[in-house]
């Protein structure tokens, strides 16, 4: 099953499960979704449940927030995370703050799905990774869909959450195939997932970093390095327990993400490791983030702008050499 199909199955399940649920976004209906995630859903559920909206990110994001306050369960699709910057006021100043400013009176159970990351040579304005921006904001729950399993199961699992939820999906993964069990399983929506256990080093990542890290881990295993791969999944609030327990076992950590290298998710995790389990470390925490440049158009430069499996392998090997074993 493709990542795209897995996402669609998740959306279909919540639409079937609850009549209050509806999908709204640019081109989600008649066009079939900019990335074909919602293709076919209009015919299945009708225009009341699959709502095309005009190009007005702030407007329809705000409408989604209002509909959530009014008793509906809107799922707002923002075509790419880059466009979400136009809706940032609604997400930050309204969705994330109303519960607090109203002293607990106004819940905003809105779910926002955003396509993120590079992979299709779409250049800077369609390729950025804004996870750290959203992970910074109190009042939001932020999730990153790094596997087919989560693509299929995450939305149904988080659907009853009473507060605003931001879900990052990855356009570069849409056509990726993976096997999934026929019966959907319930997934935990507040814990990081250990995607591969290992004893030598903890590799902490999310999103497109998950499969790249697993690929790197397989190669490294052949070289005798047993990597533990942790998919954070939840970027706000971060599950440090899983991360720290892994490092207590391996005593080394490499952090990998596509977002720009400074002031990103890895910066925060690195700092927390220092503050909490510094004496467990046999080597400095190492980070691998996106190169600090607006994502370029040519494929070779685009590929070079985010961590690749070879970069991960090099950094892990480097970290293993440090401090000796």
């Amino acid at each position: 099953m493709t990542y795209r199909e897995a996402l669609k199955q998740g959306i279909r399940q919540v639409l079937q499960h609850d009549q209050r649920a509806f999908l709204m976004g640019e081109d989600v209906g008649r066009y079939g979704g900019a990335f074909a995630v919602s293709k076919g859903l209009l015919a299945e559920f009708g225009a009341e449940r699959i709502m095309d909206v005009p190009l007005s990110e702030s407007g329809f994001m705000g409408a989604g927030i209002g509909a959530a306050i009014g008793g509906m369960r809107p799922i707002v699709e923002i075509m790419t995370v880059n466009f979400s910057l136009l809706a940032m006021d609604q997400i930050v100043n309204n969705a994330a703050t109303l519960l607090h400013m109203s002293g607990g009176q106004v819940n905003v159970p809105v779910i926002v799905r955003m396509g993120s990351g590079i992979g299709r040579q779409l250049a800077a304005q369609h390729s950025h990774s804004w996870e750290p921006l959203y992970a910074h904001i109190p009042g939001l729950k932020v999730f990153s869909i790094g596997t087919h399993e989560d693509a299929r199961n995450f939305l149904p699992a988080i659907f009853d959450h009473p507060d605003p939820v931001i879900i990052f999906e990855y356009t570069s993964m849409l056509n990726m195939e993976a096997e999934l069990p026929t019966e959907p399983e319930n997934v935990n929506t507040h814990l990081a997932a250990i995607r591969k256990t290992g004893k030598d080093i903890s590799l902490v990542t999310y999103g497109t970093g998950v499969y790249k890290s697993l690929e790197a881990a397989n190669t490294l295993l052949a070289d005798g390095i047993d990597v533990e791969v942790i998919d954070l999944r939840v970027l706000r609030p971060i599950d440090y327990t899983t991360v720290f327990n892994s490092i207590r076992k391996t005593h080394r950590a490499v952090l990998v993400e596509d977002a720009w290298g400074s002031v990103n998710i890895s910066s925060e995790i690195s700092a927390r490791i220092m503050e909490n389990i510094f004496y467990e470390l046999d080597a400095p925490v190492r980070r691998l983030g996106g190169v600090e440049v607006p994502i370029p158009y040519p494929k070779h430069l685009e590929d070079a702008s985010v961590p690749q499996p070879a970069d991960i392998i090099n950094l892990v090997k480097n970290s293993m050499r440090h401090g000796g074993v």
Partner: protein
Amino acid sequence: MDTTLKAGTAGQDNVDHYTNILYQMQLIRRFEERSAELYTQSLIRGFLHLYVGEEAVAVGVMQALTGEDSILSTYREHGHALARGVDAGRIMAEMYGKQEGCSRGRGGSMHLFDASKKFYGGNAIVGGHLPMAVGMALAAKKQGKASVTCCFFGEGAAAEGEFHEAMNLAALWSVPLLLVCENNLYAMGTAIRFSHSETHLEKKGEGYGMATMVVDGMDVLKVEAAAKQAVDTIRQTGKPLLLVANTYRFRAHSMFDAELYREKTEVEEWKQKDPIPALYRYMKEQFGFSEAAFQGIESKVEEEIKAAIDFAEKGKWEPVEELTRFVHSETQTN
């Protein structure tokens, strides 16, 4: 649509109704004046935006709404909240920052909420609540409810992209939304002629294919009549409507405003149109409403405001241990 509205017919049956309207406007007026004093004593902090002069809009519009209708407002919303029936004591406690406040003291003057009254703020990002109002009206429509969503905003918001996106969505989706533009001529200190290429704001509604009305916002009876007509139309058609109420604030934008941008003579001219004495005069002429009766209102208002301030004074500071409450819901299933 007919934009020349006549005042409601006076008659003995209406005495109670008019008396109540006069009382509500006077309550807002005195509440605001007392708030300004409390602000100078540093008992109320933050920004304080007073509604003095604009009372007829909130009170007039609110007459057309039922308890099932929802209201969204701006940072200048004490008048809307009072006219909606949010408890004066809880509003004052909110401005003091006490936990007995209508937003538990976490919102302050600009963020009054009372979900039990379907009063959804108090939004301090100019225009930020307009798309939300569209969404609330959309939710009502999807759920087959008869309720109308009413959204107050100033003419300053009509220059924001949010206004235009919301107007387009509301008209496109045909949602039961009453958009009340309180045109008080100044967005903070910038006059409408310096900020709008088209100062007849109703034309902005026409551009979106929306029904529009214009009303003298200094005449509460005209506002009431216009709002009733607007809400009736919205309930019948299910479509949104833009009501522009031309009004004026007698006081500065906020307590920090030295009012360098307008002439005192202009303010004095508008004060001649003060909606409160205007209604009082009308009631005197129509059914001999007496000075003593007006004093009765005044005493009731004074008592209510005194009680509100007492309530706020006696309120408690929320324990610091509760600082991070209400960042997330307390009944989470995930």
